[in-house]
């Protein structure tokens, strides 16, 4: 009886009104357990969870000097914590409590009184034999590093960073691109208010850059994450940009003089940019970077014009990538989304017909700062398209071939696209092919109605079955399911509302964090309703489209919620952790290391000196897999020891 300190155990049987007592004969139970080894008291109460019930328990503990307690009542998921507090208040360790579930798993599922009573006795006996071996435990305290890491500098990351920083905590914001702003910076105007996206976003980007609590790291990636809630250690790779950000004054003469051009990623390859470039004029930070894949100097050792014209001498062709290590207490994942590449949708002419573009490319065409200066011209020949087909649900809601989920934002942005097109091409005709219109949001339905009624957007309810070129036009064939006939429209340009996919970084970051992603590759939340911004990994929170397709208002409110969870975590100096975790009997451990491979949390390590396994008390979540796997019995799960389980088996079968 190595772990046993118990010799005065009390059993409290709850009637739960008549919920238990109507099928379980309490008196018989009491009789059967009187004199059971280790039991010094056995009593009952109509409602043990009520105040008088708890008073009774507290008094009995004091009067009878009990040191462990079994409460036979409802499921431990309901009142285990309540009764643990009761024990603590009565002056004994809360982990000396054992709940015997005689309601959900006995009185409520059996109707025969004799049978239910017998089963209740077995359940209580098992609980007693375990309780006698329960150790007193103390929750494990962990210090918290009050600094947050935000991964991704789109609107979600910007919002979360500002919220955390404004609460007085330090934030490291890591963005892989040379500027923050993300996809929102690429948008023209935003539904349903038609605010200019840049106008509402850029001042927030500047606020991030100027904030004393935010350390902004652009052109950077998180490469390693170790540790646990409150105590993460992250490694961040600063990619080569060949421009010294300390020296650069952002004058832009290097960009002007650079002789070479390549496709602009920001403009979805609809325009060219220089090889030394800012992704867009309002970039934050306002520091150009050199694209190493296209730079003549870096590729062939020729040119070097930018270095020659740079006044402050900020161009550094010999720059190396750097790795920075940081300690943080919480992580917000805001890695955002990609749109499904149209090259992968050959059936809609993606990648083969130049005038078939995706929604983001159309945003750039609509944007006043875009490749056409906001004039609607098609990519192939720069002509103004007189008829445009917008196709919704491309790859979304398509479980047979692509993804079953709804990408959520397309109905609204397609309405916006069609509306803005009509505003700019007065004699033009927009067609929208749709399955359903999902306009759930403040002002959304009204916006869609405006598009279809005032702006004469022709909505065709049906999927497009085929799309091909004929005589300089693009023929879009489909079925109008409302008229129940096949339709074919001949248009000049097609805009595909392609599915929103998690950013490619999601799977990489998920691996670093060992956090789980769903079947579609989006991060999984701890609970879809009650813990929507927490990931499955403690201390890691989710914001924006890394979790699911979202529009801007939802992203911003989610990001604020994630920031609040971070602040919540930082509000106390230490964290409490359940103590029913694994331990090691060092005298028995042979150091074989089986437990290390079994542990899903990397809580197990080998102590090289003592040649025994160790447990990181903070990382251990207490599943007990190592205890079952240990061949020597050196691994123990506190208050779930082999001895306890064995005595329960014996008690039940006796």
């Amino acid at each position, binding site marked *: 009886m190595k772990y046993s300190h118990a010799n005065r155990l009390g059993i409290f049987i709850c009637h739960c009104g008549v919920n238990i007592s109507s099928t379980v004969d309490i008196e018989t139970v009491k009789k059967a357990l009187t004199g059971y080894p280790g039991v010094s008291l056995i009593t009952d109460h109509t409602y043990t969870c009520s105040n008088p019930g708890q008073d009774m328990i507290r008094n009995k503990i004091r009067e009878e000097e009990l040191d462990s307690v079994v409460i036979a009542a409802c499921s431990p998921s309901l009142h285990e914590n309540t009764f643990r507090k009761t024990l603590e208040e009565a002056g004994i360790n809360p982990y000396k409590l054992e709940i015997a579930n005689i309601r959900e798993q006995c009185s409520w599922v059996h109707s025969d009184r004799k049978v239910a009573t017998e089963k209740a006795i077995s359940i209580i006996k098992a609980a007693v034999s375990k309780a006698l071996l329960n150790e007193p435990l103390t929750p494990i305290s962990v210090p918290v590093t009050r600094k947050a890491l935000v991964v991704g500098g789109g609107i979600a990351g910007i919002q979360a960073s500002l919220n955390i920083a404004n609460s007085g905590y330090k934030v490291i914001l890591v963005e892989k691109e040379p500027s923050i702003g993300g996809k929102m910076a690429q948008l023209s105007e935003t539904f349903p208010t038609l605010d200019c996206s840049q106008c509402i976003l850029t001042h927030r980007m500047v606020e991030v850059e100027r904030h004393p609590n935010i350390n902004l790291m652009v052109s950077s990636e998180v490469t390693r994450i170790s540790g646990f809630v409150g105590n993460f250690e992250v490694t961040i790779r600063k990619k080569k940009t060949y421009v010294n950000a300390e020296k650069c004054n952002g004058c832009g003469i290097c960009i002007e003089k650079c002789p070479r051009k390549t496709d602009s990623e920001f403009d979805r390859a609809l325009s060219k940019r220089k090889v030394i470039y800012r992704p867009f004029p309002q970039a934050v930070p306002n520091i150009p970077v050199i694209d190493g894949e296209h730079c003549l100097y870096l590729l062939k050792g020729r040119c070097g014009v930018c270095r020659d014209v740079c006044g402050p001498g900020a161009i550094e062709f010999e720059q190396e990538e750097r790795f920075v290590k940081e300690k943080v207490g919480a992580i917000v994942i805001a890695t955002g989304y990609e749109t499904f590449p149209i090259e992968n949708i050959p059936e809609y002419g993606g990648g083969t017909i130049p005038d078939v573009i995706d929604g983001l490319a159309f945003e750039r065409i609509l944007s006043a700062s875009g490749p056409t200066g906001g004039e609607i011209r098609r990519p192939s020949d720069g002509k103004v398209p007189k008829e445009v087909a917008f196709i919704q649900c491309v790859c979304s809601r398509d479980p047979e071939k692509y993804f079953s989920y709804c990408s959520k934002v397309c109905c609204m942005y397609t309405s916006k696209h069609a509306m803005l097109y009509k505003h700019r091409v007065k004699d033009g005709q927009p067609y929208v092919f749709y399955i359903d219109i999902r306009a759930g949001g403040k002002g959304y339905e009204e916006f869609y109605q405006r598009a279809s009624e005032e702006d004469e957007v022709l909505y065709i309810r049906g999927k497009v079955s085929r799309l091909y070129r*004929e005589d300089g036009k693009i023929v879009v064939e489909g079925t109008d399911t409302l008229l129940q006939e096949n339709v074919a429209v001949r248009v000049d340009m097609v805009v595909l509302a392609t599915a929103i996919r998690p950013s490619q970084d999601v799977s990489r970051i998920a691996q670093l964090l060992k956090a789980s992603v769903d079947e579609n590759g989006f991060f999984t939340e701890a609970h879809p309703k009650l813990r929507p911004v927490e990931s499955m990994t403690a201390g890691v929170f989710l914001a924006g489209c890394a979790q699911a397709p979202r529009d801007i208002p939802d992203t911003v409110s989610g990001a604020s919620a994630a920031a609040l969870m971070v602040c919540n975590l930082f509000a106390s100096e230490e964290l409490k952790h359940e103590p029913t975790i694994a331990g090691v009997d060092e005298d028995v451990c042979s150091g074989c290391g089986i437990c290390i491979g079994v542990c899903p949390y990397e809580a197990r390590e080998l102590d090289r000196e003592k040649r025994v396994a160790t447990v990181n008390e903070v990382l251990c979540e207490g599943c007990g897999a190592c205890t079952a796997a240990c061949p020597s019995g050196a691994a123990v799960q506190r208050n779930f020891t082999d001895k306890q389980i064995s005595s329960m088996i014996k008690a039940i079968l006796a």
Partner: protein
Amino acid sequence: MEISYYPGCSLKTSAINFERTALSTLEELGIYALELPRWNCCGVMFSQSADNLMLQLAPARVIMEARETGRKRLLTLCSMCYNTLKRSLLFFKRNGEKLKKINAFLKLEERDFSAEGVEVIHLLTLLSELDTSNFKMKIKKIKSNLKVASYYGCLLTRPREIALDGVENPQIMEKLLEIAGFQTVNYPFKTDCCASFQVVNRRNVVKKQIRKIVTSAVRNGAEIFALSCPLCEYNLDSVQQELAQEDETFTPIPVLYISQLLSLALGQDPKLNDFSLHRIDPRPLFKEKGLL
């Protein structure tokens, strides 16, 4: 290599040139197709379109014959036979109850039917599995500039679970034709239905379909069609002729089985082709292109 072969009705009559050229092409490439000793009609689409288990008896008997040969794979040439047999096989694999019922019925014949151990394979799949370098080496004709439109129709790629290639844009025929030295053209209607049996009583439906398919293929540069279905062949061939009589601007183009083109490319005896079976004579075109 030996493989069991199920011809189906048309392959012995109107499409005899399909069978001859396909079998000789395979033989040239080292594959010997052994005709099932006993066979009946595959059951055609009636077996798939009605919820009547008795209609599954025809394909079930064919599958049973194939199993009894002990060879795993069963070759089909006709797209309709392929579609019917493959779907029937899948049906019995998925419906254990139905399989039992059919077996109970077949007890009188003292035969045991099972959907396991047999695989239905189409000529195109079989050819595309072959070593392309070997294939290329055997090509006798000089590279031809004949522009071929592959016509899949509906039976090779639908439903998806039996499709022998991509459903939206299959490429299997194009790849084979290119290996054999032909040029291929792309056009949007290669998987459209030819209107099938509608030809019996609703010829207008067929005409509409054929006009659309042919016009699009010709617009994209096609000079000839390649296909693998005797019914598609009949519809395309006969209806084009009719359209040409009604409308002077309509230019019909010849319709051939893909194996005919492959056989020509391999330098085999043109007599195997029996061009007289085609209403639109392809010989002038072949002569012009130096293939005859």
